[in-house]
């Protein structure tokens, strides 16, 4: 039986992902920002896959209204007020005790430096403005950003479920190119600031979208075919129970993203030599 380099997982059943796939996955460092309905599924699946290092970020604690969808959370977590990120860490560690897990229970902007050395960032946050900020942070350090979004809308007298999974690769189309972020939506969201209320969320679309996001990750790092990733934007129709590549993709294929084209969109915005010396000294301490 083959084992991951630093893992107790027996990964023979996924050896078709490549001879070195266990080592590649074990040496991967991923961040999940928002470990709620969608992010908790992603953490669980990446734990099973044998990903070695996790940065799990969520400022919220488990509430009783989360139990309809939060993978790994229990009634006991509700009564103890366990952090969602700690629940995800527990789920991952229960599968792979050798995983290196960093739990951050603050807003991601407060620990953004932890994201810089990640190989992939999964964004599982609701607000469009926050998703834009997160994608911008990922692009600064040339990190692929996988975004999942799900919505339940009331149309007429009935409800409709939809969602999408997008891979924002540095150098290629971004969420704005894909039409997920636009100024009109940002403006509407800004007007509703502070009055968002609770958004309807259910477990099965979350799980489905999270699985597709994990599929993007696997195709990026341990592709099992030589034809790579036919789509970077998948759309979910909850009524038809279908997932389809977005019909926007043919138009995006040959277009360079104009939104992160400038070199100033890379790296630390306020780099100084003093900052470098301070950072190196702090790291030694």
């Amino acid at each position: 039986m083959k084992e991951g380099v630093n893992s107790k997982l027996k990964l023979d059943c996924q050896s078709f992902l490549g001879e070195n796939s266990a080592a590649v996955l074990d040496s991967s460092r991923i961040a999940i920002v928002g470990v709620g309905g969608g992010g908790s599924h992603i953490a669980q699946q990446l734990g099973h896959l044998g990903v070695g290092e996790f940065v799990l970020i969520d400022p919220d604690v488990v509430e009783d209204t989360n139990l309809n969808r939060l993978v790994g959370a229990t009634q006991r977590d509700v009564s103890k007020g366990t952090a969602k990120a700690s629940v995800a860490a527990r789920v991952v560690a229960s599968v792979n005790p050798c995983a290196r897990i960093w739990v951050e229970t603050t807003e991601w902007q407060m620990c953004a430096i932890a994201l810089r050395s990640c190989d992939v960032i999964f964004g599982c946050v609701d607000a469009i403005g926050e998703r834009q900020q997160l994608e911008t942070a990922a692009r600064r350090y040339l990190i692929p950003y996988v975004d999942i979004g799900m919505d339940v809308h009331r149309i007429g007298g009935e409800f409709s479920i939809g969602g999408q999974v997008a891979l924002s690769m540095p150098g290629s189309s971004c969420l704005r190119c894909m039409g997920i972020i636009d100024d009109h939506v940002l403006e509407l969201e800004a007007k509703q600031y502070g009055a968002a209320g609770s958004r309807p969320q259910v477990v099965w679309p979350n799980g489905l979208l999270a699985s597709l996001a994990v599929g993007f990750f696997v195709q990026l790092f341990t592709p099992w075919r030589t034809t790579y990733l036919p789509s970077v934007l998948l759309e979910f129709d909850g009524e038809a129970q279908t997932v389809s590549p977005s019909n926007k993709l043919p138009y995006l294929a040959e277009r360079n993203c104009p939104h992160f084209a400038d070199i100033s969109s890379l790296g630390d915005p306020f780099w100084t030599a003093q900052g470098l010396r301070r950072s190196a000294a702090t790291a030694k301490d």
Partner: protein
Amino acid sequence: MRIVFKITKRLLEEVRARLSRPHPFAFERVGFLLCRAGLLQDGGVVVLSHGLHDVEDGDYLDDSAAGATMGPHAIRKALQAAYNQGVSMFHVHLHLHSGRPRFSGIDQEETAKFVPDFWNVQPDLPHGAIVLSQDSAFGKCWIPGRKAPVDISSFAVVGIPMRRL
């Protein structure tokens, strides 16, 4: 100190293509990668490449002692680009073999002379030199405040699929 060098797959392909063009008399071509930098949590540095600054055909010296020898105009134009754009500069050339490349003796001597000159125009930024093979890379980074260069710890190619060189 950990130094991570990142380049998009698209830019790497472009670099390979532009440096592979035949030159009227030089045996190989060289260029400079325009880069920005970021601090890592462990005190390391991530170097993020963004574009290639070509050395123009007329700025090579006809010198059989090396595969490519840059003349003073080549260095001056690269210094000017670093100054104008506020960027780190990483000298780049190709070795046409597989496996991990190394700097030749001339590479080591010459880079040690001209790379620190970029601190005259961008004193706060790291600068360096890299050599690419068909499937790997090697490089050194000059960090502000340190005299000796540091080996680049890892090279990441950002694209589909993701690769480490």
